[in-house]
């Protein structure tokens, strides 16, 4: 008994992590343009985003304690691994010998890198870290990008049998249509909304609005998802600088605090789920983030959610609690999620229109929310945005990272 008692108390102590962690703020952001950037390499892109973020924060390289970088599959996209050291080198930090960590969780690699950076500062181990996300996807041609993305699926039980991302999301969409009466028009309206937002975003891959008919008549990828229901193959990078919140005002007048972070996993394969119309990883990651932030879904003023396909935005806003399960399709009809709606979703254009360089996406979402909370989002600015949420999904929901941010 004498031995067990201290162990129990340690257990309880660890569960109450919020008591021992310190607050963390974002003091700088940097993003590259997203798109088919034929003249920019993997290393150029991340160095550009990183230097923009450092410049925005006003810190010098000497003040950096660590570097985190999220990327999904540099090995297959550009034949390069050992990405942490490479990024440190190409950012000019090789001779400072700062630790560099590469983080991978399929399409949620970026969001997870931010979460790891957050932990390192919140724990007190580091004061200032830079977190980047990057992917260079257009160096491969034809089906290679699709095949590489499919490495985020279950190779033995899904990809091996020919399943692809569009195919699996199409199954989710058909089931959602069957269960809840969601229509192809509602799916298409998500693309129309996000393209309208993307048209206002100078960093977006597709800076153009598209009419509903064009989405509905786009070549069929996997029923009911046409080509314009799918996010594109993109190059791009994003970076944020994280700092202990009590030191943030030394660097910037507009720090943005990370109020909450949540992460969850689920079965790697879609067929292992209890319900394919819900991503439990989103539900649990969201729950943890809301609890830590001490807010409810209704308190969120602006959200960037993982709309790799139009159906993904519908289930995301349901699983995050913005609308009831099954009402995600109706939300777009009622214009709840448009720029001037009750809860604007994907003001950046989302993955659909802004582009989806997979490793960069999670970090770029955070950068967009920071721009929104600072009031620096230009034509796509959401009015009076105080609290923002970023939702980053790995593959078909096997992992999810949610962050909640607040201007301080």
């Amino acid at each position, binding site marked *: 008994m004498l031995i067990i008692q201290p162990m129990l108390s340690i257990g309880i102590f660890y569960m109450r992590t919020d008591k021992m962690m310190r607050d963390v703020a974002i003091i700088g952001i940097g993003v590259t343009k997203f798109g*088919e950037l*034929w*003249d920019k390499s993997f290393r150029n892109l991340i160095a550009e985003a990183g230097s923009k973020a450092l410049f925005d924060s006003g810190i010098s390289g000497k003040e950096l304690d660590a570097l985190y970088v999220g990327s999904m599959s540099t090995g297959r996209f550009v034949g390069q691994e050992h990405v942490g050291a490479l990024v440190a080198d190409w950012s000019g930090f090789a001779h400072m010998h700062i630790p560099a960590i590469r983080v991978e969780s399929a399409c949620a690699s970026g969001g997870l890198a931010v979460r790891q950076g957050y932990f390192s500062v919140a724990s007190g181990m580091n004061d200032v870290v830079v977190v980047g996300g990057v992917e260079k996807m*257009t160096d491969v*041609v*034809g089906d290679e990008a699709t095949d590489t993305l499919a490495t985020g699926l279950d190779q033995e039980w899904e990809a091996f049998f020919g399943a692809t991302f569009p195919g699996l999301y199409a199954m989710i969409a058909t089931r959602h249509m069957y269960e809840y009466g969601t229509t192809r028009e509602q799916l298409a309206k998500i693309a129309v909304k996000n393209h309208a937002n993307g048209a206002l975003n100078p960093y977006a891959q597709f800076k153009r609005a598209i009419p509903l008919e064009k989405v509905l*008549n786009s*070549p*069929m990828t996997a029923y009911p998802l046409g080509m314009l229901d799918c996010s594109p193959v993109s190059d791009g990078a994003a970076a944020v600088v994280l700092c202990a919140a009590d030191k943030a005002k030394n660097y910037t007048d507009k720090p943005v605090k990370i109020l909450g972070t949540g992460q969850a996993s689920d079965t790697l394969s879609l067929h292992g789920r209890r319900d394919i119309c819900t991503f439990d990883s989103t539900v649990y990651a969201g729950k943890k983030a809301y609890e830590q932030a001490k807010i409810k879904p209704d308190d969120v003023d602006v959200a960037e959610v993982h709309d790799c396909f139009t159906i993904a935005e519908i289930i995301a806003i349901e699983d995050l609690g913005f609308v009831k399960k099954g009402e995600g399709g109706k939300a777009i009809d009622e214009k709840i999620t448009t720029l001037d709606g009750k809860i604007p979703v994907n003001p950046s254009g989302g993955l659909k229109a802004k582009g989806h360089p997979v490793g960069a996406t999670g970090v770029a979402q955070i950068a967009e929310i920071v721009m929104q909370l600072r009031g620096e989002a230009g034509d796509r600015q959401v009015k009076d945005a105080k609290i923002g949420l970023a939702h980053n999904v790995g593959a078909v929901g096997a992992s999810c990272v949610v962050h909640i941010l607040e201007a301080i």
Partner: protein
Amino acid sequence: MKDVGIVSYGAYIPRLRIKSSDIAHAWGKNPETITGGLGIIEKSVPSPDQDVATISVEAARAALARTNIDPQDIGAVYVGSESHPYAVKPTGTIVGEAIGATPILKVADYEFACKAGTAAIQTCMALVKSEMVRYGIAIGSDTSQAAPGDALEYAASAGGAAFIIGRENVIATINETCSFTTDTPDFWRREGRKYPAHGGRFTGAPAYFRHIMSNAQNLMKSVNSKPEDYNFAVFHQPNGKFPVRVAKMLGFTPDQIKQGLLCPIIGNTYSGSSMLGLASVLDVAEPGNRVFVTSYGSGAGSDAFDITITDNIKELPRKNAPLVSELIEKKQYVDYSTYAKYRDLLYED
């Protein structure tokens, strides 16, 4: 030194056609999306007994039929193609022999994707200008390949054109030519492979558009001209959309490109593409007309020409050989299975 230019020209397009919609049906694609997306209604198909040698000979003979030139006065034959029948053994020797220009003759086969023919024009210009030869024949001709099911299958077609370049009785003076070349791997076919590979959308902005835009602008800068100074403009035509878009980007009107835009009804004849466009313009051009021609070859490069039609065109018996419009009208459709048999698609690469 006398002006160098085109003395005569000839064209050839195989008679067989396949509709884009038939190809789309074979692959379970929506024909309207394909036709609208690529801007190609139908394309020419070579018969089993037609290849780059026969097409080149037809075009060269057509060019000679419009002149009284003694074939023995032709000092050079250059054939540009990416589908020469032999990997080793020239097409140019076959053409030279067939038109009676051998044996005191400079010959070489050229390959530069779709611009090998315009590169041959430049070579002939240099030989003629330096008086190394009296006449040179530059030919661009192809029976281009496309893997079954590839997007290229809707475009890759067959045809060619020949231009006799000389100093005397020039019907079209070539005032200036310039080129723009980089190492840009947008489209290629490895040694021994049956079908080419391509970089998908990479073939657009950094390849076709960058090279044509840069080269066209350089040419207009060097001769101090503007798009409105030209009666006709011809661009390389890999599909029906790219030439229309690049013309618009440069400031040319749809009327200027209409006469030379053949891809929608015959497909992409590769090395023959911009040259057949130019032949079509010469079919109707009048003295004083100014013509702007820009080719593009993957890999990548572009040749541009600033051309003025002379009074001599009135003396050229254009009716002595088929006009491009006549070659286009003379057609016979094949279905996809016949096409597959004729194009040898039924065997593994």
